[in-house]
Every structure is written in structure tokens, then in C-alpha cells.
């Protein structure tokens, strides 16, 4: 397709840096969000679309290491950024992903990728969050199934495990 219509010609081809890979977007519409391009053009459907207006956090990805709601970022604005989606957090299960499974933090799972990205961001920048900091950090991610109890437990468990591992490494 050469564009949506005569008044909407396709922009020039561009590339995004996703999970360490250069991903080419040969044809598009200029109005496409980062979320749409990740999901529909580049094959990263792990990032979810639930509210279309930045309220629910399901579409959270890391852009240059900081979380953004990708439904509110124009794809063309992300061309120079390093993007990390849930698919790019690790080759194997990360400690956060494993903790979500162990704690029972997953039910329908629609909010899960966004929450896992948000939890990684919290724990990577704030290694020892208290309970309120955890609640605050994930308060931009809506979950309708779990009531958050097991999610809070999962994040706290990762915090404790990382602090314990750190303590073992630094002790003689």
C-alpha cells in the first residue's frame, strides 16, 4: 500500500531499534503509534492494547531505559531510541517473570507484560523499594483480575532475592 489515501501518502521507510535488533518499517501511515507498529508491523504482540490513552499501562515498553506507554508515543518519534519490549527482557525467564508465576500473579495475563516491564524498571532503578514504593510504581498498570495482592508479593519477592544475592556477593 502506498499510503492510506491520496492526501495521506506513506512516509519514507524508517527503522526502529527493538530488543537490540534493527527493525525496518518499509511502509506505514504517519499516524501510527509505537504500539501499533510494534504489534502489527514488527511482530511484537507481547505489548498489549487495552485503553488507547495511556491510562492502563498494558502497552508499557522501555524507551532508552525508561518506561513509556507506547500507545501515546508516535512510532516515528522512536526512530532514534533503544526500545525494549517484554519479549526482550531476557533469553530465559527473568527473575521477575519467574516470581510472577510462583506468586500466582497471573490470571488472564493481559496486564502481565506491562506489569513485568514496570517491575523491572522499578527494581533496576530502586533496588530496595518499600511497600508503598512498589504500589506506587505499578499504580499506572491496571489489573482487573488479581486485586494486585499476588503481584505485590511477586515484586517484593524479587526485591528480597536480589538484595539477598547482593549481600552474598559482597560478603567475604
Amino acid at each position, binding site marked *: 500500500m502506498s499510503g492510506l489515501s491520496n492526501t495521506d501518502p506513506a512516509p519514507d521507510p524508517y527503522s526502529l531499534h527493538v530488543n537490540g535488533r534493527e527493525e525496518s518499517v518499509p511502509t506505514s501511515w504517519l499516524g501510527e503509534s509505537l504500539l501499533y507498529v510494534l504489534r502489527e508491523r514488527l511482530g511484537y504482540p507481547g505489548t498489549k492494547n487495552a485503553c488507547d490513552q495511556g491510562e*492502563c499501562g498494558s502497552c508499557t515498553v522501555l524507551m532508552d531505559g525508561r518506561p513509556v506507554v507506547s500507545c501515546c508515543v508516535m512510532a516515528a518519534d522512536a526512530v532514534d531510541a533503544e526500545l525494549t519490549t517484554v519479549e526482550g527482557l531476557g533469553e530465559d525467564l527473568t527473575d521477575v517473570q519467574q516470581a510472577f508465576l510462583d506468586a500466582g500473579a497471573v490470571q488472564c*495475563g493481559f496486564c*502481565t*507484560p506491562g506489569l513485568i516491564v514496570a517491575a523491572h524498571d522499578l527494581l533496576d532503578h530502586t533496588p530496595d523499594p518499600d511497600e508503598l514504593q512498589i504500589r*506506587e510504581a505499578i499504580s499506572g498498570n491496571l489489573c482487573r483480575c488479581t486485586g494486585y495482592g499476588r503481584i*505485590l508479593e511477586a515484586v517484593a519477592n524479587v526485591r528480597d532475592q536480589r538484595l539477598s544475592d547482593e549481600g552474598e556477593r559482597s560478603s567475604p
Partner: protein
Amino acid sequence: MISHDTLSASSTTTAPPQTEHKDPAGSLGDSADRPDGTPKVTGDFAFSSDLHAAEMLWGRTLRSPHASARIRGIDTSKATAMAGVHAVLLAADVPGSATYGMEHKDQPVFASDVVRYHGEPVAAVAADHPELALRAIEAIEVDYQVLDPLADSQAAIDAPPIHPDGNVFRHIGLRHGDPDAVDGDVVVEGTYEVGMQDQAFLGPESGLAIPDGGGGVDLYISTQWLHVDQEQVAACLNLPPEQVRLSLAGVGGAFGGREDVSLQVHVCLLALKTGRPVKMQYSREESFYGHVHRHPATMTYRHHATADGDLVKVEAQLVLDGGAYASSSTAVIANATCFAAGPYRVPHAAIDGYAVRTNNPPCGAMRGFGAVQVCFAHEAQMDKLAEALDMDPVELRLRNALSTGDTLLTGQIITGTAPVREVIQAAMDHPLPPEPADDDPLERLPGGTGMTAMGRDVQRGVGMAVGFKNLMYSEGFDDFSTAGVRLELDNGGRPIATVRCAAAEVGQGFHTLALQIVRSELGVQQVVLGPTDTSIGSAGSTSASRQTWMSGGAVQLACRAVREELLHRASDILDVPVDGARRELLDLRGGEVVEVDGDRTMELTELLRDSAIDEIREHHHPPTDPLDDNGQGNAHVSFAFAAHRAVVDVDGDLGLVKVVQIATGQDVGRALNPRSVIGQIEGGIAQGVGLAVMEEVMVSDGLVRNPSFTDYLIPTALDMPDVVATLIEQPEPGAPFGAKGVGEPPTISSTPAVTAAIRAATGAAI
């Protein structure tokens, strides 16, 4: 401390039977892992909105901007002429039934002559790009003659009909005992209103329809009941059901909102019309228009009691606003009426329940299904009565609590477990949280980090409530589920079982449970899931807290049939008869067939070497009766109970509420997967708390004012209180594994517990 359940299961009757062998890991009673867990945390799990097909088009619906209007004409010429637009469909393009509906087929696939609610579908398009589809529906010109909407549910009862089927979906005049002849020493009355709640599942409606080239279609869809969708879609497409095959695509939550057809017919019509795969995916705004909500209710009550506090009579009028189309309103009002007085002994009752049609958005199933609305009212009444009697409200409830052998308002005697006193006691026995302190962080205060409450005038309140509802379908419905279990050897020669069932996994964990059941019943470690689709018989809906009992029971029956065949095969080889009186000479234990009175055993590998075993069974629950003209009858199979105690902090000046803690006791029969049970309890409480303090679909003059997550608020992690839970495990007679469904009770009494706590904190009459 992070909210932590105590998981202190208090078994008041015998534990499940102990077996000599050890069940495989992940059997019943274990917190077994979800089979869909890993793909859900890595992003690999395919929800319906994640599906893609080559040459796929995007579908979109045009919806009415008016609550009530006559359609004078529709001009699709501009949309049809747009490059990249492949189909524009109206009512005249529906080849089969023009209307659909789960119980009453009164809802048009597309409105043609009139629209009856804000958001009613009028047309659908398919285009190359979602933005083009949006532009195409905006290019369709509909000439509406706007009419005054019928928006008042009470007025609807006698108003001129807005649909050929009339305005009253159902009226039940329940009369129990001799309500005209008796009165109480103490009488309290009140009128209560519950607003419209949205299910707000995170994954919006979506589906992918692929034409098969032979006139049929395959639909990959997020739904709660594949077979009832199949039946309705096939009728509208004018196709035999076998040409409309449905497969469950990943479901992003449901809570009742996916029980009715939404885009199913539209997307299949578009696929058949264009001959190409078509995907539809609602935006959040469209999702608010595209599914039914919880009925708003207006409920007027009068409770009568003796001076000692024994309930004598309950009178009530319930009016539930069903909106423009029937959906499941007739069943919702039955529940509201049957459970109008709560889990108490009430010898005399006169309850008039109405579900009515208006030009408001259609309402139907949501978690709790009619029991939520009346619990809000009857529990406020119980508090009011306690005050009038100068009696402790917990004591009043304990005094009147139902137990096994008692009679419900419908005349039905409870034969199963009814641990009402136990759930109340368990909820009240949890320690109260620490009192608010001056140095509490602002996040803990009402208003949170907005710092609107400075702590000076914050009042703490404690309230409680009790509720119950039926499990599974009622009123004579032949409720059943179908499951198949295939046992064979894998490539390495080890036994592997495959379990198939069309029960929709919507996040609640049925797939996990199905695997647990097979592991326990057959002693086989390797168990996998077959497809969830319409190639097997119906499993009924994932609703009414019914799948553990109904589909769990079907899986159990299929396992038992596989076991019988294993024993037959072993009996031939071992020359031990298994028919008739000597049947018990062989048994399946620990994954092998053993001779009960001897020491010979047979490995499953020997018994499966020549051929697999494949058995399919249907599981029906015991029959129920319809309600008679007085709302009397043995209409229900089983009941589940829960109590909640809420602790709230309220800034009375600013009207801000912080829910601090919810303590609960819940009747679960038996916890087959304790981690899943806790997940259901915490999640259900979140929805109950949301209804109490922040959730309402605002509708004025029939128009929805807040169809977004910016304006319709659901609890975040900062809003959600700590939850402490006690599971009451009294195995239910007749229930597979003794388990009761656990999904709905958490949502029923948590809401009135919060409002009771707010009343206690403020003295306000809410």
C-alpha cells in the same frame, strides 16, 4: 507489610479421602502451575487481539450516537467508494436471523428502523487499515430522527413499549409464608440504589474470522461460551452450525461481559462478504458500548423483626434497569428476587422483582449476577435493623443466619453446606489493622499523594456484610458440560493424557484445574490440553461460578471412563473378572493397575501398547425446577457464602475514602488449587471495592458519559486494600471433589461491607 492472606484453611469436616499412593505433583489440592503461565509472562501467549492472518482486513462498527432515534435513511456511497474499503454492511446484508440474543433473540445485528441505545450497531466496514476503517464509518451518513429516550426504569413498567416485546422483561411476585398476615415488633425501611458497573476486563473484545472458501467460516474469538455464540452466529449467517466453527482465542478477562455476542456476527459477515480474513478489535470506548453492564437497581425494602431480633418478614420492590435488550435480564432478576433477603431465615416474604427495558445501555451478566445489588440493600437493612433493636449487627446476623436444613424465600430447603456463621466468624476474627498514626505517609490517607486530606479530620470506620448466591444454572435449565480424555503412549513410550473441553479459560484457571483432575484421577504425570473449540460438545458458559463443578465433573467422568477401560484391558490379561460383584478386584493406583487382593500389577504402558483410550462424557447437574407463580420452587442446586469486614478511613469534609483492609471468610467447599482460590478472592474483592468507592458508568438521558479508563476508574495498586482471607472448607455433598465455585462470592458482600464502614465512620445515611 504487603497484603498477605493467612491461607488458614479451617476444615470443619473431614479432609478429602487419603489414598495410599502419592498423587503426581500438580494434583488436586496443590497450587499447581498454570499451563498458560509462562507464555503469559513472556508475551508469547496469543490473545484474540494478537491474531494475524495474511491479507487480513480490519473491521469496524458504526454505532448510534443517540439513545433513541428513528433511522430515516443511511447513505453508504461515500464509504463504499473509498479506496481500501472492501465492504460496508447494513441490516439488509444479514442473510439469516436479523436478531440475536442468548435467551431472547430481541437484539438486531444492525439497527435498521430504530436505534434503542447509545452505541447500538448500525453498520460495519472492512478496510485495509484500522485508520481507513475508522474513516469509512465516519463517511457513512445516517439520517436520524432523534426521539426522547425512555431513561427511567420505574416509569418503563407502565410506559408505551419501546420494543415489540414490551418493556417488562420479567416480573416475579415472590410470596413466601403468609406475608399479609404478620408484622414485626420492629420495622425498618429504606430505598437503595446501585449504579451501573462495567466489567472492565483488560483485553477489549476482539476476534479473527477466516472464510473457509466453501461458504463457511472459522472464528477465533475471546468469549465465555463458544457454543452459544456458535448457535447465534450460525442463525444470523443462515449457515448450519458445522459451517461456523469457533475456537477460543486468548481471553483477557471476562466477568460476565463476554457472555453475550458482541462482534461475532459482524466479523463473520465481513469475512464472508470480502472472502478475506477480517479482524475486529474494539477500542476501550467501543468496549464500553459493545458489552452489557451490571444492572443499575432501585430497591425499596421493609424488614420486620421481633423485639428479640428474629426476622419475621421482608418486603421489597426491586427494579433492575435492563436497558434496551433482554440479554440475561430474566435470569438476573430471578437471582435478585430469590436472594433478596440475604443468607438469613425469613419465614414470610413479599418480593416484587422487575427487570425492565429502557433506552439505557443493555445490562446483563456481571460477576455476582443479581445477588450483588440486593446484597447492598439487605445488608444496609440489617445494619439499620440492628440499630433499631439496639443490637450488635454481627450478633443480629449470627442469630438469623441460614444453615443446612433451613428454608429459603423460594421454599427450597438447603440440603448442602451453609456455613454462614463460620464465614461471619472467620471474617470478624482477623486482627484489625493498626490505627492511623500522625506520621503515616500521605499515600495512606484518603486522597493519597494528591495530599487533599491532611489527616486532621480522618475518621476510621469498620463495617461488615454477608452474602450468598447460587452456583450454576437454575430454574430447570439442563445445565451440562462435555469433556474428553485420551490416554496413550508418547513417542518415548510413556503414558500421556490429553484433556479436551470447550470450557472457556478466561484467566480464572480452569485449564490448570483440568490438568490437576486428570493427574489425580489417572495418576499420570504427563497431561496436556487439547484445543478449546466447538469440535467437542458444549461446556456451558464460564459464568455462575460453575466450571469447577460442571466441567471439572465432566473431566472426572471422562477419567473414570478411561479407568474402566484400563481395568477391562487388565482383567483380560490377568484373567481377573472386573464386572459385577468382583469389580473391586482391580484398581488404578499410582499410575498402574493393581490386583486388590494379590500382588500382581500392570503398567499403563502394557495396557496402552496396542491402542489409545479415548472417552468423552457429559456431566449434568441434578435437575432443578422453574419458579412457580409465587416465586416458589427448588430452583437452585447449591449455594456459596462469604462475609467481608471492611476498615476504611474517611475524610468527611472532602468526601474521600481510603479502604484500608478487607477481611473475609469464604465458603469454598474444598480448595482444589489454594493459590487460584486466593487469586479469585482478592480479585473479586477488588471489583467489589471498586463498585463501592469509584466505579459507575454514568448515563444521563440514555447517553454514556464516561466510556474510557480516564473517566471510568477501577482500583489501582494504590487503591486496593490489604486482604486477609480464611477459607472455610466443608466439602459440598454431590459436588465433584466437594468443591464450590469461588469466583462470585468475593464480589457480593465486599461492596456493602465498605459502605457499612463508611456509615460507621461518618454517620452518613448512605
